[in-house]
């Protein structure tokens, strides 16, 4: 977003997005779908900076999502706190969890890193399903309506501007991160570890910091999700969220600011409006993930670019 023209284009696109559910008829189902797209896109952006910038695959991100959802459920339904306090608690809690996971996995790379982070998610799931403090298998019900500064979001239509605002903030944060010193150092470690060491970059410190940037983003999605659902259980740690995040991050192409948002939108569009039933949707989502990584390593954008270049070459050949 650093080029002025790009910024204008981005703002125009984001404002169109804000008005889109209204333009599409404004039914409750459309607003619900848009709120969910915003939530799951925010969740995916958290993972995106780990996968695209740090070059590692964290499978622990469902735990950050759940941390946000559970913290909010506890803060609002049990302790009667307002959304702003719940958000602060969510960020603090996710930073604490990220610090813990980060410390354990600091020296691990590649598949061992992924393996341990996957184990974190499975343990998180058994913990959420069994620990009575987190409601055990019943979960936590009775999360009140989102109400802040006199604005009450009783329906998804009223929650949509809030979800949109946080989506915009997330995109801005990710874009600033990519231009920041930390973001550049993370990329250096990812693309050229030797150069990073020679430039005096401490890989472990950077990894930890990137983790600490990523976790609150995904946890904020959990915060919004709790208000949309009004009920939270161990289902927030379902494999579905992990597969969805991973697919959204790789589907369009890596290190493209809009990619996770477009990825999530395409997936949710299929699930909400072209669904073939839960189990078939699962096969489709998994199948897309397999196909993209195995056959289209640069994502759909890579295919689009190649097709465009091919057509351009043909046209110039025909002209000459």
């Amino acid at each position, binding site marked *: 977003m650093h080029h002025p023209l790009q910024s204008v284009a981005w703002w125009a696109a984001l404002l169109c997005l804000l008005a889109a559910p209204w333009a599409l008829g404004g039914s409750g189902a459309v607003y619900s779908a848009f709120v969910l797209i915003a939530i799951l896109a925010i969740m995916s952006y958290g993972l995106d900076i780990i996968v695209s910038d740090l070059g590692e*695959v964290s499978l622990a991100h469902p735990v950050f999502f759940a941390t946000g959802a559970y913290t909010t459920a506890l803060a609002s339904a049990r302790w009667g706190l307002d959304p702003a306090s719940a958000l602060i608690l969510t960020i603090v809690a996710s930073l604490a969890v990220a610090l813990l996971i980060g410390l354990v996995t600091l020296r691990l790379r590649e598949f061992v890193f992924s393996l341990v982070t*996957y184990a974190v998610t*499975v343990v998180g799931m058994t913990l959420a399903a069994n620990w009575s403090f987190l409601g055990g298998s019943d979960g936590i019900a009775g999360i009140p309506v989102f109400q802040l500064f006199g604005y009450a979001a009783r329906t998804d239509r009223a929650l949509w501007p809030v979800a949109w605002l946080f989506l915009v903030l997330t995109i801005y944060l990710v874009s600033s991160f990519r231009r920041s010193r930390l973001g550049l150092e993370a990329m250096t470690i990812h693309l050229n570890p030797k150069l990073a060491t020679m430039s005096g970059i401490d890989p472990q410190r950077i990894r930890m910091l990137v983790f600490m940037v990523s976790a609150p983003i995904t946890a904020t999605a959990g915060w919004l999700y709790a208000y949309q659902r009004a009920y939270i259980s161990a289902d927030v740690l379902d494999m579905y969220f992990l597969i969805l995040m991973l697919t959204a991050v790789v589907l369009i192409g890596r290190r493209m600011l809009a990619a996770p948002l477009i990825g999530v939108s395409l997936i949710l569009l299929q699930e909400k409006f072209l669904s073939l039933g839960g189990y078939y949707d699962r096969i489709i989502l998994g199948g897309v993930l397999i196909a993209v990584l195995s056959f289209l390593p640069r994502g759909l954008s890579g295919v689009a670019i190649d097709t465009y270049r091919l057509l351009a070459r043909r046209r110039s050949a025909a002209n000459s």
Partner: protein
Amino acid sequence: MNFAQQLINGLVLGHAYALIAIGWTVLLGVARLVNFGHGQMYMLGAFVTWFVMAKTGLPYLVAIPLSMTVGVAVGYLMQRTMLQLTIKQDLVSVMIVTLGFGHVLEGAAALFFGSTGQILDTPLSLSNIYIADIWITWQDIAIILVTVVFFAGLKYVIEKTELGRLIRMVAEDPKLAALAGIDIQKIYLGVFAFEGAAVALAASLVAPRTPILTSMGFNEVIITFVVVVLGGIGSVAGSYMAGIGLGLFTAFFGAYVSAAYSTAAMFIVLIIVLVIRPGGLATRPGGH
């Protein structure tokens, strides 16, 4: 809770863990590959065995090889799909692709077998043996025997035969192996097919111990991680010992502390090992 009974339970469980993990041990240590769909392949193996016995009435001894055949087919198909990633040694992508396969397998299994739990009863699991106040089934004895024979056979093949030598060579340096005229694609496909067969065999033997659900794969893969990591990645004898140690740990932890948290406890063990001995995680290509 009787101490001797827990000891027996732990030993049976330990052999079960080792058998479930053997496919991964070979995959990771010998061919430097990973499979996050391992748990769902275990689930599929259990359901195919159940389906063959319950719906067609064929005997257990026929159901096992059929289940293993399906395992071979799934393993082959997975590796066929991601062969380019494997040859590039893009482990991170291989990992996510196998995770995707797990997701697909779970959806497909729920469609085909239904999402309700089933009980996989075999002639062996229904015949009990009582020695004083200790209880054990023939199924438990079969698990121990098959695991011991399988591990001994595998160790022999990897260390002593021509095939084992080729596999270790591919693991050590795939490019050099290819230059030396080894068909590395065939080795990778074969190793994955072996993983499919091994986990299906483990499922046919171990799954009768508990009710089976199409969603159970998620948990199963953790046990495998812990066994493989504790055993020293790629070590066949190491994962046998790690399996037994972990089985004993789970049995006693479940009996004296809490059964619900035994997976979490297992994970804590893994973390402690990682923090104390990060060197134990160094992949030794072709290690045995």
